[in-house]
Every structure is written in C-alpha cells, then in structure tokens.
C-alpha cells in the first residue's frame, strides 16, 4: 500500500533509493547530505533493505566502490555534496564514460572558498559536462519520485548513463513536507531488475574493461555517449508518463511550465527557489503582468529545443541563477538557455540574474524585482553584459 508521511528531503531520497532495491550502496557523510547515509545504514540494520553497504573512507572511494559494483552488475546508489563531489571527480567522469547506470543524489551545496555549508547547485553545475544525466528537483515529493525514475532512465537500453538527482541543501534536505510513498509492489512493477549486457566483469564471460584505446575508437565511444544523452531526452519524458500512469504523479518531464502559455515574458528558474518564484508570478499576474515561469528540470541532456519552444516569441525572459559562470559574468544557466535560443532561432532579449549564493534566501521580493527588470528589458532593451544581483540587505 502506498502511504503518506512527513519527510525531509534526505529522508525522501533515502526512501526513494531504497524502494529501487540497490544491490550496493557506498557513501561518505558530508553536510548537508549526511542524514541520507544515516538513514540508509539504519534501514540496513533494521533489515528493511538487503543492499550490501560500504561505509567508505572518502567520496573518491564511494564512487569507486560503486564503479566496481556496477561493473560487476549491481544496481547502485550513493549521495554527496559539494567538496565530496569535487573529490569524486575522477571516478565521476569515468562512470559515465563506462556507461554505468549509477544513481547519485546530490544535495547541492555551494563550493568553497569561502568556507560554507549552505545550499546552491554550483557543485554539480560546474561538472555538467562530465557525461552524467543531471536532473534538478523542486520539492521533496519530486526527490522521492525522481530517485525511483532515475533508475528507469539510467538503465534504459538506449541510455545506459549515470544520473544525478540534485536538490538544494537545507532548503529541501532539511525541510519537512508531506510526501506520498508508493508501495514497494508498485515500484517493483515499474522498475525491472538491472541486468547489464554492455559491460560486465564476470569470470564466466571474461572481457577487458578499458583496454588502452586508440583515438578513432574513443571518438566512436564519445559519439555514442552523446547520442545516448540525446536519447535520454525522450526517455525522461516517457518515464515521467509511465510513472504518472502507474503511480499517479507527473513532474513535467524535461521542463515545468507555469502560466507560460499566454505569457509575454518569462522568468526561468531551477530548484527550490521556484516556489517563491511561482508566488511572485501569481502576484504579478494579479497586477496584470502576463508573466510566466519556466522551471528547468533537466540540465544534462539540455532540452534546448523544448526550452526554445517555450521562450520563442516572448518579449523578454530572465534567468535567475543560483550559481556563477566565472568568465561569463553571469550564471551558468543563463548561458545554457541563451545557447538553446540561438541554436533554435529564437532571438529574444534576456536578462541575467544571480542570487541566493551560499544559501542566501531568494525571496518573493527578489522575483518581483526580477520580473520588473524583465519587463524593463522588454521595453527598453537589455545590456546582457550587466548581470543583476539579487542580494539581501544586511
């Protein structure tokens, strides 16, 4: 039987991952991800899961243990944040280039320096080009649902890629919400067992993994990897539909559109701040602004066509980034969305915003201000070299 509980984001992630019945779990604690490791070890000692678990000595080993386990044929799970993800980078890149469908929750946390603990997706966005699928969610229900969907997407025969489910540290990880937990039988029905055919370390069928490889072959493998990322665009939408049919919830697939249909301007957001942004959109709608919201869910593969379809023909849009792209004087998503627009012929003026770094709150007032600026841009044109910073007075 499905049930309802009050869960924080980390509980939602741990329960979601458990429902997928991973064979091997390895994780190393780091704020704000730590409770996930505690929950999972508790599930194990309570006999609620039968996964093999490794309390590794670092994140480098967490990803390395999973790489080995996945190569042997296990379904796997880990979770990390910021510095832990950075330490993991070497096996992280390799997990994708070996096409291992590992699932990792990333509890987004700002990168140091300065020394910080608080939320922000700088950690995972910085390594968006390491070959993984990256999905960013808004609330705890979406965390739990996407943990389950993640395996279905990653293990799809046309995809076979590792996947990150990313959510904001503290804002979601430590906030409690009503979450519906699907019954194990339903999840089992949704998610068949993982049986790798493309790569496996098995004495019964010996093969070498990663022989020294010539450039022309490396190019073939990269070509196929890129193609798999593009396939994932379809698969993510299909899995979202299948999940909705069986379990009863859809999260929009590649993007979430909020009051976009008749909008003349759009504010683009990602992650937990989207809640405040939607409230700001509602307030502005009351005032007569035809503003809409586009929430990015999938950063890799980047749904450029889908995004351009939403934004094309609008008078102006703004992107609120909770991260920076050093060297561009904007956030990362601003660059990504603009690339998508130019690729698909949508020449719409756009305003870059940066806010909420280091866990700073991005409030409704910030979005009200941002929406005003987007309309100013629509009327007067935009100097897109000038990022607008959304800060809190102290």
């Amino acid at each position, binding site marked *: 039987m499905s049930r309802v509980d009050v869960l924080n984001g980390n509980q939602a992630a741990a329960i979601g991952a458990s429902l997928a019945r991973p064979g091997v779990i390895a994780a190393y604690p780091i704020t704000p991800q730590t409770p996930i490791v505690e929950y999972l070890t508790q599930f194990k000692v309570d006999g609620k899961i039968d996964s093999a678990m490794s309390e590794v000595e670092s994140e480098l080993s967490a990803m390395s243990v999973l790489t080995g386990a996945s190569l042997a044929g296990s379904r796997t799970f880990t979770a990390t944040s910021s510095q832990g993800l950075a330490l993991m980078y070497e096996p992280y890149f390799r997990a994708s*280039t070996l096409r291992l469908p590992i699932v990792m929750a990333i509890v987004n946390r700002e990168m140091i320096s300065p020394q910080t603990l608080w939320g922000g997706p700088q950690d995972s966005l910085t390594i968006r080009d390491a070959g993984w699928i990256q999905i960013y969610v808004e609330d705890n229900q979406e965390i739990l649902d996407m943990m389950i969907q993640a395996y279905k997407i990653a293990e799809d025969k046309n995809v*076979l890629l590792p996947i990150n489910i990313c959510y904001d540290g503290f804002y979601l990880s430590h906030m409690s919400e009503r979450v519906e937990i699907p019954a194990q039988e339903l999840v089992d029905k949704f998610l068949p067992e993982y049986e790798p055919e*493309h790569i496996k370390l098995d004495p019964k069928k010996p093969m*070498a993994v*990663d*022989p020294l490889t010539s450039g022309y072959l490396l*190019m*073939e*493998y990269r070509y*196929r990897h890129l193609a798999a990322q593009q396939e994932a665009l379809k698969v993510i939408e299909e899995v979202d539909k299948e999940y909705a049919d069986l379990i009863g919830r859809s999260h929009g697939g590649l993007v979430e559109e909020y009051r976009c249909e008749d909008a003349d301007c759009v504010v683009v957001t990602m992650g937990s701040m989207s809640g405040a942004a939607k409230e700001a959109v509602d307030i502005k709608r009351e005032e007569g602004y035809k503003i809409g919201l586009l929430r990015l869910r999938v950063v890799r593969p980047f749904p450029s066509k889908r995004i351009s379809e939403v934004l094309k023909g609008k008078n102006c849009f703004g992107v609120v980034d909770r991260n920076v792209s050093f060297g561009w004087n904007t956030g990362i998503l601003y660059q990504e969305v603009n690339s998508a627009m130019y690729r698909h012929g949508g020449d719409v003026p756009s305003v870059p915003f940066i806010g909420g770094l280091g866990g700073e709150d991005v409030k409704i007032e910030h979005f009200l201000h941002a929406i005003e600026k987007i309309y100013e841009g629509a009327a007067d044109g935009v100097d897109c070299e000038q990022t607008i910073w959304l800060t809190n007075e102290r």
Partner: protein
Amino acid sequence: MKFKSKYIVPVGADGIYEIDTGKWRTERPVMDKDKCIECGICAMYCPVFSIIKEDEKYIITYDYCKGCGICVHECPKDAIDMIPEEGK
C-alpha cells in the same frame, strides 16, 4: 558515423592482444641436453614462461622468448648458452 567497434563502451572482448616479442631477440638461449639435469629452474624463472615441459623434459620455445638470458644465468649446470640470432 561508421563504427569499427560493435561495443558502446570501451571493452576488450574480441580475443587476446599479443605482441610478437620473439622478434625482439638479439640472442637466443640454447640448451645443452648433455649437461641438463631437468631440474626446471630455468623454466621457473623465465618471465615469459617460454620454457615448457614435454615428456618430462624441459625445452625452450622461441615464439615469445625475448632473449633476456635469465635462464642462462640461473642454470646451476651451465647447460644453457646464448648464441647470436642470425641477421641481428
């Protein structure tokens, strides 16, 4: 793209990769069976396992022998000599 590999990932599953290391040799070890006592020490130390045992006798094979001379050096009976490979 035209693919040479039928795999989607870098795996080696199309047989065993071998180098023709026998061609490296400048000298070859030759066993004097009058002196050999079939102790097997030469075979035990051959890094390439090129000395094999057939009908209770040790014989040197040359397909992969790199001509290192360990067998000559380790033989307790001085029963193996290195002789130059022709043309090298």
